[in-house]
């Protein structure tokens, strides 16, 4: 599992990084006749504008990963900040923060993003900010509960008893306790943000000049008579499978990392 996931995610990264070298054509320019079927010149055919599908899939990896990485980094850092400080401070501040987190979880995500994106205009930056905001609640709860579970353990109280300051405690004891969980939460959120960004793009909420998998499907389904020509196979399948593969890669990676993250499971495995 870990291996398969790692291979998929790493190859995605490589494709995203080397997109300009790997892609045979410029993904934005019409480089062939409209809607040609897959051939030697265009391995995955062309779309209605005559753009090369393979090149668009390759460049799509880049934009998908940029949005996913950006929004996950944002969600995790905001979530960690809110969750950890709320767990450390406790009291009324904690109750209020968790109330807000609960409300954020109960908000209908896609309608909210549709509304906001329609108001501010969707471009890559606003999408990263929005998706990051929408996903911060779950990590906030996880980090808070992790802090709460560690805060009163023997090694922390004794370190405190020896006069360890808050910063020292965070650095020596709390941060290491957060580390593994941070990794698994990040992987899980990465998979979700890939899918979420693709969904938004599919609904038309993306910079229309961007090259992304979701947008490819959006324009594919807008192609008149799509289902009645064989063009369906090369307009819909490549981008769809690219999204699926990316999501699956992160899912496998998450499951594969489980034993390293969850000590309880390690114990049960050893016995």
């Amino acid at each position, binding site marked *: 599992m870990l291996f398969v996931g790692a291979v998929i995610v790493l190859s995605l990264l490589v494709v995203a990084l080397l997109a300009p070298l790997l892609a045979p054509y410029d993904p934005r320019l019409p480089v062939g006749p409209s809607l040609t079927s897959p051939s030697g010149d265009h391995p995955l055919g062309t779309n209605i504008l005559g753009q090369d599908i393979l090149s668009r899939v390759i460049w799509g990896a880049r934009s998908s990963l940029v949005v996913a990485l950006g929004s996950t980094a944002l969600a995790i850092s905001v979530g960690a900040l809110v969750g950890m400080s709320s767990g450390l401070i406790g009291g009324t501040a904690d109750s209020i923060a968790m109330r807000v987190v609960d409300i954020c979880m109960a908000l*209908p995500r896609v309608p909210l993003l549709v*509304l906001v994106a*329609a108001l501010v205009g969707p471009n890559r930056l606003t999408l990263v900010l929005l998706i990051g905001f929408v996903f911060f609640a779950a990590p906030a709860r996880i980090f808070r509960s992790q802090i709460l579970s560690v805060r009163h353990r023997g090694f922390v109280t004794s370190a405190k008893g020896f006069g360890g300051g808050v910063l020292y405690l965070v650095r020596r004891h709390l941060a290491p306790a957060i580390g593994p969980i941070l990794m698994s939460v990040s992987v899980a959120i990465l998979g979700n943000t890939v899918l979420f960004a693709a969904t938004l793009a599919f609904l038309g909420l993306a910079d229309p000049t961007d090259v992304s998998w979701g947008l490819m*499907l959006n324009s594919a389904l807008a192609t008149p008579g799509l289902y009645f020509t064989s063009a369906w196979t090369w307009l819909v399948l490549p981008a769809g499978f690219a999204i699926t593969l990316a999501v699956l890669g992160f899912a496998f990676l998450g499951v594969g990392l489980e034993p390293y993250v969850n000590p309880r499971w390690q114990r049960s495995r050893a016995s």
Partner: protein
Amino acid sequence: MRSSIADQVGYADSTTLRGDVDGHLGDQFPVVPGGEVEAPLRKPRRNSRRSLFASYAITVLALVCLNFFLPRVLPGDPISALIDSASPSYVQSEELRAELEAYYGLDRPLVAQFGDYVGDLATGDLGTSIRYNRPVAELVWERLPWTLLLITTAMILAAVMGWLAGAHSGWRRGRPVDSGLLVVFMGLRSFPGFFLASIALFIFAVQADLVPLSGAQTPFASMGALERVGDIAHHLVLPAFVMALPFAGGQYHLMRASVVTELGADHLELGRAKGLRNRRLKYRYAARNALLPVVTLAAIHFSGAVTTEAIVIETVFAYPGMGRLLFDAVPFRDYPTLQACFLVLGLVVVTGNLLADLLYRRLDPRTRT
């Protein structure tokens, strides 16, 4: 490899996020390793029914406030959409803008506007759609039943599919059937809904011509009541099934994990000793104990379906529900409709969660304390 997948997923399911984009990831999150046993945690004050209602009331209030303040705080407002030359409803001139602002009451103090807004909401006035030039409330009333029909059917399908497959898989833990089903359901959860929908549409509606391509009923056809029901069901089956698949994955994992923990339990041994048939043991003894979490998960999925899947599936199948209404409103910058969709879908989610909480209390006396 086989046993390791089998062992992991029941567990993995608790710490990995669900592979789709539903709104309630938090509910999927597990107790973190180490547990909260040692920490003197204050229990979330959700115990009394009054505080349950209070917490939902706060969420509703937050929804209403967001709905009111978002368009006013963010750059780009409905009026500038009218003035922006890229907008389909392009209106040129600053004087007109002032006039429009006065017309819509946007020049008044914010508090007064908020009062008006809440007053309008209380009387069921959601504004007038820019695109259709009709009261939005009317549109919502037309569309909402379709969405609810679609989602409810899908959730029932998902629960039944997941329950049956999960029970079977757990019962045959580690066998080829089990690993096969595990891989299938895990894969299904990774497919984006719109991709799955498009594939299903192509195979079942175009190639096999089994179901209609789009819509919720045959338009302009006059038919009897029974025929009408059949027609609606005929249109419903494919979108509901496609919507159910990813959720069935969640139900499957839950069911499988709980049947696995039941294996070898005393009451099963006794049943076997009594000579009960395998099928009866599997479904009536082992699988039955997991019904309660299945109901809960269905409720959690319901909120996810309302906020994401419904919009996507309705878009692909041109199903005339709330999601399609929302989707169609985007290119027209039909703000009143967008806002109403946000509010109504939010209210549906909140109401669904509240009902689930109440139902759960009834089903499980331990949560009542």
